[in-house]
């Protein structure tokens, strides 16, 4: 959990870097935020990986299962290889789809592998967190199921839309001076 919380620092650094970078027109200021943004972006997935790896660390892998990948794990590996190849082949859309499959397959394989545990205790089996002892009461779960049925399609829809809007690779040509927040756009927003 400490690790997870440490990771938050990088997510937050990354979150504010987008905004703070443009706040002052000083070379050093911008360079500093550029560095922090890059560091945050590199460290966040790294630490997430370590945290997820740690989840599995205390589960006992037997020799017979260690060498054989189940279909989901195999899918994750193949999709990751495909993603690298597609990036080199400059087929961005398919590369993106392949990394999406990799991530989904990793998450599915980790949690189906752990089931019925959610987090395995490093000291005693008695302290394992399982789907049974972490679940809410039936009433809460029913309410949240309804909430998920209502909101999840909407969330998925606007996430897909966002990815569609920002589907092009960003290049240096994209940076023209006019952006929201300058005098001109404020003037337009206020209709004066």
């Amino acid at each position, binding site marked *: *959990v400490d690790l*997870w*919380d440490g990771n*938050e620092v990088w*997510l*937050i650094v990354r*979150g*504010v870097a*987008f*905004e703070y970078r443009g706040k002052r027109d000083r070379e050093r200021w911008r360079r500093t935020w550029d560095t922090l943004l890059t560091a945050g972006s590199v460290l966040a997935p790294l630490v997430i990986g370590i945290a997820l790896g740690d989840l599995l660390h205390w589960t006992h892998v037997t020799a017979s299962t260690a060498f054989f990948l189940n279909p989901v794990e195999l899918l994750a590996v193949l999709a990751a290889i495909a993603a690298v190849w597609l990036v080199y082949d400059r087929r961005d859309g398919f590369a993106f789809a392949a990394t999406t499959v990799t991530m989904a397959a990793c998450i599915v394989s980790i949690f189906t592998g752990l089931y019925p545990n959610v987090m395995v205790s490093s000291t005693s089996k008695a302290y394992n967190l399982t789907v049974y002892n972490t679940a*809410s*009461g039936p*009433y*809460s779960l029913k*309410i*949240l199921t309804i*909430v*998920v049925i209502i*909101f*999840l399609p909407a*969330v998925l829809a*606007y*996430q897909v839309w*966002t990815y569609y*809007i*920002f589907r092009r690779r960003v290049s240096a040509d*994209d940076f*023209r001076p*006019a*952006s*929201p927040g300058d*005098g001109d*756009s*404020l*003037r*337009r*927003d*206020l209709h*004066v």
Partner: protein
Amino acid sequence: VVTGIVQEFEFGMNWGAYSRLVGNVFGAPLAMEGLGAFFLESTFLGLWLFGWDKLPRRVHLLTIWAVTLGTALSALFIMAANSWMQHPVGYIMVNGKPQLNDIWALFTNPVFVWGYAKVLFAALVTGAAVMLAVSAWQLRHRGDQAVFTRSARLALVILVPAILFTMLIGDELGVIEPGTSR
């Protein structure tokens, strides 16, 4: 958006014992907040910040309204959770732990209804005061007169009634909140 991330983790780390005890009730509005508000707010903020050249102007304007809606919804669920702490309703005790049995009670909790109204008006006060201060600074330092006269006027029109309502609602909240009196 960023401060929300910190708080989610504080629930787990600083207030772990509290979360274990009341998670069954408290978790419900928090989960709703995450799914119904946090994603809305953060996704559309990204669209608004980086979508100027990619979206039609009206759609770009709509994205900031979606952020506003997400923020207001976020406050709604967080205030529902907080109001339950001030005045617990809609639960039964099972094995020494509160268990949710009426979600509707959480959102009709009088502390929530008045508390949420107060938060919304207080947010308007804060926003309008900042906007007025920026406009005033700009007018004094020879910024764009037309733009900032207009924004100062808008800020004042919002600020004055918002202060009044914040005070009136705050008074009502003080009257109904258990353990406090006029």
